[in-house]
Each structure stands twice: as structure tokens, then as C-alpha cells.
């Protein structure tokens, strides 16, 4: 199985290539808001270095968020359009799952928190199993203090990880967090994306390009305001 995967839900663009169950290479770069500028050149360069022809790809894998709206749209549009032109399917994976996945070996629950701006975070809880990380409950959007207070009451020794830890260091000061200088661990992993997509493809869990949708979790302000006014 030849797989190209990328995630653009955070301030990083991560790209990975997989072939026959192996990860051929990955790239991860800080882009701030320049997802659209950086994604396609990064894909091009990684494919060239790995001697992978785009026409040989069998699936495109993409991070679905939740995360930065504009970044997500760049990644999902690129995935849908490349897959459309190549006539291949897409595997979509939550970007929070991609932060949790590399931690399956630590033997304790994990909470992923991602920066949602406006003093909120996106989060999801995971339990390691022999088949990988199992998500418990839904993806949520919460104020960081609310989640931190909740975690303080549980004593299940969970580990907190994700770029939400970086933006809300104070709120999570009393939690057990992944070391904040371990930059890679805070962001979605392209190697995990490629690995998960490989498993999903073998289980026939893929979809048509047009059926891939972002996990926004939040509606637009205009729609929220509209409902608030009850019109």
C-alpha cells in the first residue's frame, strides 16, 4: 500500500509517505498561518526525495481536525483534490487521534488538548489497548480550566499532551504533561497518520474524496449569533 498523508490542523504542516506498511519519510514544519503556502511544496519535496511518483499512490490520508479552520480547509481541500485527480480514495483521521497514537506504549490514559483559540481547547481522552489507542467519549471544545479541574478530580494518572499544553501552561500546571520541549509530541504525527491509514485500508475503511469532512466542532460566529437571537 502506497500512502501519502498530511495534517494541517495546527500551526504545523506534517507530511508522511508510507509504502508496504513502512514509513518512508516524514516532514514537520512550523508554518504559523502559512499552511497553503507550505503544504504542496512539502509534499512535492518529500515525494521527490523518497522517489515516489504521485501517480503510484493508492490512498491519500488526511488529518480532519479539530483545529485551525483555515489550516484544516487547506489540508482537506488538497487531499480531496489530489485523490479526485488520481482516482483514489481518502482516509480521514482526527488530528487529536494523531497526537495520541504515538503514546500507545506508555500504559496509561492520555488526554490530548489542542489550541482552539479564544481561550478554549479541543480535547479527547484515550486508553491504550493492545490494538492501539481507544478513544473514550467525544471530541470536545472546552475552557482549559474546566478540563484541568476535571482531571484534578480523577486519579487515573493520565498524561496530558498537545499544543494546548503550550498555549495554556498555567491551566495545566498541576497536571502530568508531556515535557513541553518535546516539540514533535505536541503535534499530530505524520508517521501515525500513515500507519493508521495502512490499517484502515486493509480493513476497507476508506471513502470517496467528496465524503471527507472537517471536524469543526464549532459553527461560525454568525450562525451562533443567529440562534442566540432566536430568529
Amino acid at each position, binding site marked *: 500500500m502506497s500512502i501519502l498523508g498530511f495534517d494541517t490542523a495546527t500551526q504545523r504542516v506534517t507530511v508522511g509517505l508510507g509504502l508496504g506498511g513502512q514509513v518512508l519519510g516524514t516532514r514537520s514544519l512550523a508554518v504559523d498561518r*502559512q499552511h*497553503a*503556502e*507550505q*503544504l*504542496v*511544496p512539502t*509534499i*512535492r519535496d518529500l515525494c521527490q526525495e523518497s522517489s515516489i511518483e*504521485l501517480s503510484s499512490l493508492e490512498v491519500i490520508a488526511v488529518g480532519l481536525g479539530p483545529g485551525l*479552520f*483555515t489550516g484544516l*480547509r*487547506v489540508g*482537506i*481541500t*488538497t487531499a*480531496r*483534490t*489530489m485523490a*479526485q*485527480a*488520481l482516482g483514489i480514495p481518502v482516509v480521514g483521521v482526527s488530528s487529536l487521534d494523531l497526537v495520541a497514537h504515538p503514546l500507545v506504549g506508555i500504559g496509561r490514559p492520555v488526554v490530548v488538548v489542542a489550541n482552539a483559540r479564544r481561550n478554549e481547547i479541543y480535547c479527547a481522552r484515550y486508553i491504550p489497548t493492545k490494538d492501539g489507542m481507544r478513544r473514550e467519549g467525544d471530541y470536545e471544545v472546552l475552557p482549559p480550566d474546566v478540563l484541568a479541574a476535571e482531571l484534578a478530580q480523577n486519579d487515573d494518572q493520565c498524561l496530558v499532551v498537545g499544543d494546548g499544553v503550550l498555549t495554556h501552561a498555567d491551566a495545566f500546571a498541576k497536571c502530568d504533561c508531556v515535557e513541553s520541549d518535546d516539540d514533535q509530541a505536541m503535534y499530530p504525527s505524520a508517521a501515525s497518520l500513515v500507519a493508521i491509514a495502512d490499517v484502515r485500508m486493509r480493513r476497507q475503511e476508506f471513502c470517496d*474524496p*467528496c465524503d471527507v*469532512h*472537517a471536524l*469543526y466542532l464549532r459553527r*461560525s*460566529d*454568525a*450562525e451562533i449569533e*443567529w440562534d442566540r437571537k432566536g*430568529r
Partner: protein
Amino acid sequence: MTLILGIETSCDETAAAVVENGRLIRSSVISSQIDLHARFGGVVPEVASRAHVELINSVIAEALAEADVQFGDLDAVAACQGPGLIGALLVGVSAAKALALTLDVPYVGVNHLEGHLHAAWLQDPDVALPLAVLLVSGGHTMLVAVVEDGRYKVLGQTVDDAAGEAFDKVARICGLGYPGGPAIDRLAKDGDARSIAFPRPMISEGLDFSFSGLKTAVLNHVRRNPEVDVRDVAASFQEAVVDVLVHKLLVAADNSAAATLVMGGGVAANSRLRERLTAAGEASGRRVLVPSMDLCTDNGVMIAATAWWRLRSDGPTSLAGGANPSLGLVSTR
């Protein structure tokens, strides 16, 4: 033969088209989001951006099918890179760059304003230069001289509201729905354009425009005369705008020695403006190039047609290119 796919997502139309050699329209597909934004009384950027992602791939597929071409037949892929709503623009730019990379063909980022200009030019690509061009829509009101291909001189632009914006605001004042342009146009047909003497802002002061005072004059008139017939308001307001636009385009043509008057943009679909411009052309012995109605609103044809010229003059755009929400119309040579 060069086949270019043009993608346009700068505002609330998701559009794609295939154009052959910069002039032959092989297909044009426009999916309008008007219904999505109507209840908000205007375009909501986040709603527009989300809708573009959902629509873009089926619009591209339809444009190819209508042109009877396959992805592999394309020689270049173009997208509007600004001006416009940044989140919306990036959907089209991302789709176009993804295609260019996958198909190994050039990518061309196109200026939206240059696109509108080319939509009119498409009526007669061989017309002699210079041209005096009026670009008029909900986002811009601008006079441009085309000196030679790819070389523009911006002669004037609005200092406040765009003309299309004034149409939307006056429509709201008159209790009409969104979008306001077509509603005013329709209503004005049954009104008396001479019944209310609205101001013609800055009509003899150079080539810049101002429409916010006119909008206020309409608001005040309606407040003071609650019984006024909205058809008369619509007709009188529209006539004031058209007077200013046509007059300044003629002055611009005089100043730049242009024998041809060109118009582009959403407001160029206004029936009274088209009628008056045609008459002004006849009276002054000038040719008039006005795009067909479906090329006035935002479309992929204008992007593909412009890309063909740009590709020849400047070559492809880098795959590291992004979008610029406030991109201006500047001469590149």
C-alpha cells in the same frame, strides 16, 4: 491547443471553467451560495469558506465533464489568488495547486480584478488598445486604462463604499432581500427615475468615486417620507449611480484616448447601466464591450482566460504561492 482549468472562490460563488487558448469557453460551472448567506443579509466569510470546500470538487468535475476533457488533458490549472475573502480564496488556491502538482502542469495565480477585466475583453480579444475599463461590483469600483496587454493604469477608485455595496444597503433600507442589486434593478423598472433628486457624488471631481453619501441621502429621504413609493426610490437611486459611473468612464476614455469602453464585475449585470453605457458608446462613437450576464458575476472563465495571458507573459506561479485578500491591480511590467 492549450486547455486551462480556472477556479474562482474569492467570495460566495464556487466556480470552475475550462477555456481553450485563452478565448474559447469550453465549459463554465458556477455554484452560487446566495441561499446560504441570505438570512444573514450578506456574505459570512466562515460560512462561505466551509461551503467552498464542500462544493469545489463537484464543481471541478462538472466543468471537466461539460468541456468533455479529462484531468490529463489539462495544460495548466489557475485559481483566483485575490483580492477576496482569505479563507475562501485559500480553498481555490489549494485545489488548483493540488491539481497542478498531481498532474505535473503549471499553476497560475490570477488577480480577481484582472479576471473581471478579461471577462469583457473575451467578447473581442483582438480589440485595439487602449481600453477604458469600469470594474464595478460589491467589492470594488474602479476605472482602469489598459495601455497594452498586462499593463494597467488605475485611474480612479472608490474612496468609501463600492457601488454594489451601495445597492445592497439601499435594498436593505427599502426592505428588499439580499442580494440587493437584482432586486433594485427589477423594482426600478416600474419606478420614476426623475422623481427624487438624489446627489451624484463627486461627479465632476476627478475619477474617484464615493457612494456612502448617496446611501445616506436615500436613508434620510425614506425616513422623512415614509409613504414614498420604493419603486421610485430604487429607480432614482439607480439612476444616480449609473449617471456617475457612465460619466466617469467617458472622462476616463477621453483622458486615456481609448476608443473602446469596457465594463466588468457583478454590477455590470445591471440592466439600466448596460442600457446607458450602450447609448453613451453610440453617442460618443466608441465601441462598448460588456460581458454576457453569466460572465459579470464571479466565474471560472475569467480566471482561466487571464491565466492564459499571464502564463505567456510571466510564466507559472510558484507552488509556494498563497492568497492575498487585498491584492491590488498593478502593472506587472
